């Protein structure tokens, strides 16, 4: 760690990991409710658990991105953060607001929550991933703006590199596209447009910039490859991501009442979206193979490589699987979608945040890398989580294919619930894989508490 103020990243990362654990617990609750319908009834209904699961995911990833930004931007800009105090204040605001929101989901009926929080003034609630009550949404904007101010000032007065510029543009994009969540038109088609302009333009647009910048940052550090080489890759990757991703939004317009030509435009452009993800994989492996030094933090290298591979599998391969209109006609909104959503979110964004944490946490705790045992445990947790996620994806895909067959293709289509009944075996297997994933998370958390001889801090 070169600058004292980088340490504000630490509370962000700790909060992120804590919420991650919460997310997984609620995933498991839901997974069980899929097969044991009245589990925890009436304390935690499925729809509430689902909201908690997905919102915790988004919130902890945001914590991760923010922490990463507060660490990365000063180092790249070669100066202290503009205002560490502001960053810390925002952390507490975000944490309290986030926790209050999650608790209110669990303790108050959603409709009452809407009534109390001014949803009748400006209706924004009720859409997947964007369920937050109005005050929380405004809080997110305030926290994001304060962060952007803080980071932009740092970059403006410091060194400008491809990495900190891409990171900054990505974060600005994240904040700007979030503004679409404040508009909730009554027209269902328009409603869907605005929803996708947040969700799709996030994960298949600006978040890719954030991810690319984080990956490039860690790769420079752990491989010692020339900055020029890495920056060239970064530029090409983000250019491809934006070209394909923006018009690629059309792959969500097929059946929502948008004009028919979107079936062509959405199919062709989104078919190119795997390219940037593929390039990230090649990028990571290429840089590690050309490394100029053996960084003692082996775990961080493993996470970086894993991010490349799993992001390509989850977003690239599983995304491509159902992105062409004639295929999506059958798969739309089935378990195939859930399979893709899980692996893509895990492979791209969960893993890139964990990569960043893995690289920076030892440095913030005063050492170049953790001791051997701690790293071993961390690598075990990597494999447990990753393999478990692969199996979750495979079981959901199998469930999805069967579901589509029974419900949408067969000569005598079954009703939704009857088809679900038929595939419950896969849901049981998903739940078992989920338990293994949970063990992975627990090991991961445990690895932070293992003491032992550690490498001396150098950078």
């Amino acid at each position, binding site marked *: 760690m070169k600058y004292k103020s980088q340490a504000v990243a630490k509370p962000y990362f700790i909060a992120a990991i804590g919420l991650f654990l919460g997310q997984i617990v609620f995933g498991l609750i839901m997974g069980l409710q899929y097969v044991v319908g009245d589990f925890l009834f009436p304390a935690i209904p499925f729809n509430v658990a689902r909201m908690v699961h997905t919102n915790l995911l988004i919130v902890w990833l945001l914590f991760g991105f923010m922490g990463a930004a507060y660490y990365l931007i000063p180092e790249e800009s070669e100066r202290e953060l503009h205002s560490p105090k502001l960053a810390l204040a925002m952390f507490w605001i975000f944490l309290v607001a986030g926790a209050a929101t999650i608790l209110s989901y669990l303790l108050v009926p959603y409709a009452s929550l809407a009534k109390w929080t001014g949803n009748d003034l400006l209706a924004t609630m009720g859409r997947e991933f964007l369920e937050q009550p109005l005050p929380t949404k405004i809080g997110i904007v305030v926290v994001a703006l304060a962060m952007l101010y803080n980071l932009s000032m740092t970059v403006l007065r410091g060194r400008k590199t491809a990495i900190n510029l891409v990171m900054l543009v990505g974060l600005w994009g994240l904040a700007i596209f979030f503004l679409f969540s404040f508009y909730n038109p009554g027209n269902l088609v328009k409603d869907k447009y605005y929803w996708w302009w947040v969700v799709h333009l996030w994960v298949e647009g600006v978040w890719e910039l954030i991810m690319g910048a984080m990956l490039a940052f860690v790769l420079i550090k752990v491989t010692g490859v020339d900055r020029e080489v890495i920056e060239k890759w970064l530029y090409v990757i983000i250019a491809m991501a934006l070209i394909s991703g923006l018009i690629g939004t059309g792959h969500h317009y097929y059946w929502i009442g948008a004009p028919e*030509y979107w079936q*062509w435009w959405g199919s062709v452009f989104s078919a190119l979206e795997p*390219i940037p993800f593929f390039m990230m994989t090649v990028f990571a492996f290429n840089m590690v193979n050309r490394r100029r030094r053996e960084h003692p933090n082996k775990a961080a290298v493993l996470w970086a490589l894993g991010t490349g591979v799993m992001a390509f599998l989850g977003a690239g391969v599983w995304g491509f699987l159902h992105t062409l209109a004639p295929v999506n006609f059958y798969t739309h909104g089935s378990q195939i979608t859930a399979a893709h959503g899980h692996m893509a979110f895990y492979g791209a964004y969960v893993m890139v945040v964990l990569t960043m944490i893995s690289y920076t946490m030892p440095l913030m705790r005063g050492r170049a890398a953790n001791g051997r045992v701690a790293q071993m445990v961390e690598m075990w947790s990597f494999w447990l989580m990753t393999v478990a996620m692969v199996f979750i994806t495979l079981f959901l895909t199998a469930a999805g294919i069967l579901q589509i067959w029974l419900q949408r293709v067969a000569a005598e289509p079954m009703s939704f619930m009857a088809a679900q009944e038929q595939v419950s075996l896969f849901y049981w297997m998903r739940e078992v894989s989920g338990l293994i994933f949970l063990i992975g998370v627990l090991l991961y958390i445990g690895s932070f508490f293992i003491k032992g001889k550690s490498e001396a801090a150098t950078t």
Partner: protein
Amino acid sequence: MWFFILAELLVFGVFFLAYAFARTRNVELFNASQLELDQLSGAINTVLLISSSYFVVRAVDQIRHGRSRSCTYWLLAAMTCGGAFLVLKLAEFGAKIEAGITMSTNTFFMFYLGLGFFHFMHVVLGMVILGAVTLKAWKGGYSAASYSGVETGAAYWHMVDLVWIILFPLIYVLH
């Protein structure tokens, strides 16, 4: 830049083939709709783009010999052709919209308007790139020893030309 160009060629290639194969399922409709196009305007546009590409070749040759000033003139000539292309194309689109034709009219017009507009945006981008190169050349920013900026801009412009060279016969001529 070459990576970019390849990606663009890939996109256009996929759309060209989509057009060709979508047509096989609807030959009559495509042929009938094609008759409504203004082939003359398309042909003039082809001449304009080909010529501008040629002018760009001359511009690159001039700067290779260190002649910034005449490089600028050739680039301006190329941009004039590009500008004329855009004007004609707008007139063509305008006439179609006047006639009540949109992307939703039928599959043929979806491709004609969609691909045409997509290519149009590339001409605009190409003009922006050429404009930046011209400005720098005008200020004497290139020399016989260093002119890779001109070459890069030229490569992009030729790509835009190349795409049109296929687009024109495909959509306006073949039936």
